[in-house]
């Protein structure tokens, strides 16, 4: 083993450049993978959240912009077969204007009626304080990523859209959407979206009549996807999103995006692989005579093979370790810089880091196979003649 390490550094610059090549590839894999992992978790969180319910919005809404509905729509929804419980739910952006660059869901204000809470399977744990109740006015519970943004602590007053709110609870980190949510009572949320409405609409409606969505829990045995279709066909001017719709629209898009991200990283690694092949081929041609000598004094083909594969694997391992180190550092720096906006782009998971390390070693070994086989099969007499 010691000999192999010595051999690696016979040509210091060449080995260093190869290791650096792998390191850059692995760095790309770690950083890109960090984005993919974050997206993956967000999608998983969304999938879990939507698993057993139907979300209803106004027909004109899209995923990012919601237009208001009135509460009497809820009465219509309740009459549809298969709907067990209907609760109005408000979701709107925390800041009135969307920030230009946003990764994942933007920070949101949420407030919902509590009638159907007993059917809710998606649970949020608080690390401190208490949950929001219907009667709360001017109180807020903050998601984990917003805690930093507001330098939050229980009892502190913060300003959201020009109004003061007292923090009463802090949520545990979930790594998914709820991390960037400010929960308030349904009544307070109504006031927020009412403020956004055009004057002409305001003149016809009271703040207590508006919402911008409903959550419909299906009866036992009713498929939420079917319920979504039934709701759309029986209630006018609404759009119903079931678990499958979420999967189809978001999860699959994000899945493709993730594949592209990994694809780019892997292409950059291919370059590193080629440089290992080059380095090993060069090393072997320089050490042809030594290989001949080793075989003449009794080395088996497999001894030579193992020696060179180990060397290639070590180059991969070293490159991988450095790449992971630099990648982790870079991710840490960017995440820290973005923490104040409550938006972390990267998520480094153990499976990503271990995967990258194992991948770098496998890559080294695979890249070493051809040169090592070539070395092991050299004729002794011919190798000994080399200078």
């Amino acid at each position, binding site marked *: 083993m010691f*000999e192999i390490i*010595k*051999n690696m550094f*016979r040509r210091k610059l060449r080995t260093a450049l190869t290791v650096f090549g792998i390191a850059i590839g692995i760095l790309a894999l770690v950083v890109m993978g960090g984005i993919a992992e974050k997206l993956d978790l967000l999608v998983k969180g969304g999938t879990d959240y939507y698993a057993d319910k139907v979300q209803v919005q106004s027909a004109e809404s899209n995923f990012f912009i919601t237009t208001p509905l009135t509460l009497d729509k809820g009465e219509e929804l309740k009459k549809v077969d298969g709907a067990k419980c209907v609760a109005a739910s408000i979701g709107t952006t925390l800041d009135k204007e969307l920030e230009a660059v946003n990764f994942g869901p933007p920070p949101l204000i949420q407030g919902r009626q509590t009638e159907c809470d007993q059917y809710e399977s998606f649970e949020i744990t608080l690390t401190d304080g208490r949950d929001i109740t219907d009667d709360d006015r001017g109180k807020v519970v903050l998601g984990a990523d917003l805690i930093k943004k507001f330098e939050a602590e229980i009892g502190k007053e913060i300003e959201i859209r020009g109004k003061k709110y007292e923090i009463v609870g802090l949520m545990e980190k979930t790594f998914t959407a709820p991390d960037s949510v400010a929960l308030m009572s349904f009544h307070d949320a109504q006031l927020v979206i009412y403020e956004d409405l055009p004057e002409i609409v305001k003149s016809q409606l009271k703040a207590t009549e508006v919402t911008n969505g409903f959550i419909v829990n299906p009866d036992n045995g009713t498929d939420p996807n079917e319920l979504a279709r039934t709701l759309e066909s029986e209630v006018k001017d609404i759009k119903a999103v079931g678990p499958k719709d979420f999967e189809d629209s978001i999860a699959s898009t994000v899945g493709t995006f993730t594949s592209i991200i990994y694809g780019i990283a892997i292409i950059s690694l291919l370059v590193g692989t080629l440089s290992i092949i080059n380095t090993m081929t060069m090393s072997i041609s320089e050490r042809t*005579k*030594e290989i001949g*000598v*080793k*075989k*003449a*004094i*009794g*080395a*088996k*083909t497999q*001894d030579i093979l193992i020696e060179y594969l180990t060397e290639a694997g070590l180059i991969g391992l070293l490159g991988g370790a450095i790449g992971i180190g630099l990648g982790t550092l870079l991710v840490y720096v960017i995440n820290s810089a973005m923490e104040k906006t409550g938006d972390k782009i990267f998520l480094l998971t153990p499976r990503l880091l271990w995967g990258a390390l194992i991948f770098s070693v496998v890559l080294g070994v695979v890249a070493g196979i051809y040169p090592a086989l070539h070395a092991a099969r050299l*004729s*002794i*007499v011919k190798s*000994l003649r080399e200078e």
Partner: protein
Amino acid sequence: MAEIVLKLEKVTKTYIMGQNRSAGKAYNAIRKYHKKYESICAKNDEKLEKKMGKTLERAQTAFAKEKYELAYKTITGKNLKKNLKDKGVVVHALNGVDLEIKKGEMIAIMGPSGSGKSTLLNALGLIDDVSSGKVYIDGILASKLKAGKLPEIRAKKLGFVFQSYNLIPTLSALENVMLALRYSGAGRGERRKKAEEALKLVGLGDRMKHTPNELSGGQRQRVAIARSLVNEPAVIFGDELTGELDTKTSTEIMNLLIALNKKKGQTFIIVTHNPEVAKMCQRTIRMRDGKIVK
């Protein structure tokens, strides 16, 4: 007849306790033919009886010869031929070489360039194959072994000392010697102990940690000699091993080999251009045009 077979059986049984498979084959053939012979004798067919008798005799002779190889010879080459193609022209690098080298001999092979001395050394040392002929090493018909078996024979039975030392530059003297022990399958602790002993034997007890770059030519060749003898091989081959050394160092190295030959009964086969080196050996084989000349 029966008496001879019984005697042969006895010898063969002792013989089979060793490792020689070809002698085992000879023994089986003799037994098989003997059984047939007896059944034919019972039939009173004179013509067949005579024919079988001759076959049996041949088998017995073959066996006796193989037995002889094992008892007296370290290395034997029989009718060795090596044909090389050079631009479509066939060159007979070895053209029917027969030689027998006894245990404990120190032999020089001399001859002009291109006479086939290195080709012969490579063939006997199992680092190159022959076009036809047989090589026996320590009683084993090595030229018929599968490629996968050769490294073990090279590691355990043969040692090589080259003109340009051929040490691994990144390894210390001790590690270079230990490498040969690793390939012969010695355990870690044993490797160090034996390698240290071998280096002391060649007078480098105080240079073990030095890398080849830190050693003189003569010292490097001593390391190479230590590496070649550390597995106690049946034979050590030297290919122009004094070729890069000055006269004084050459003599020192040759004296070392003579001492090892006397002290340990180590067999040496040395290819050389230098008559002084050849003179120090017990016997000189001269080669010309791929053949041994008297």
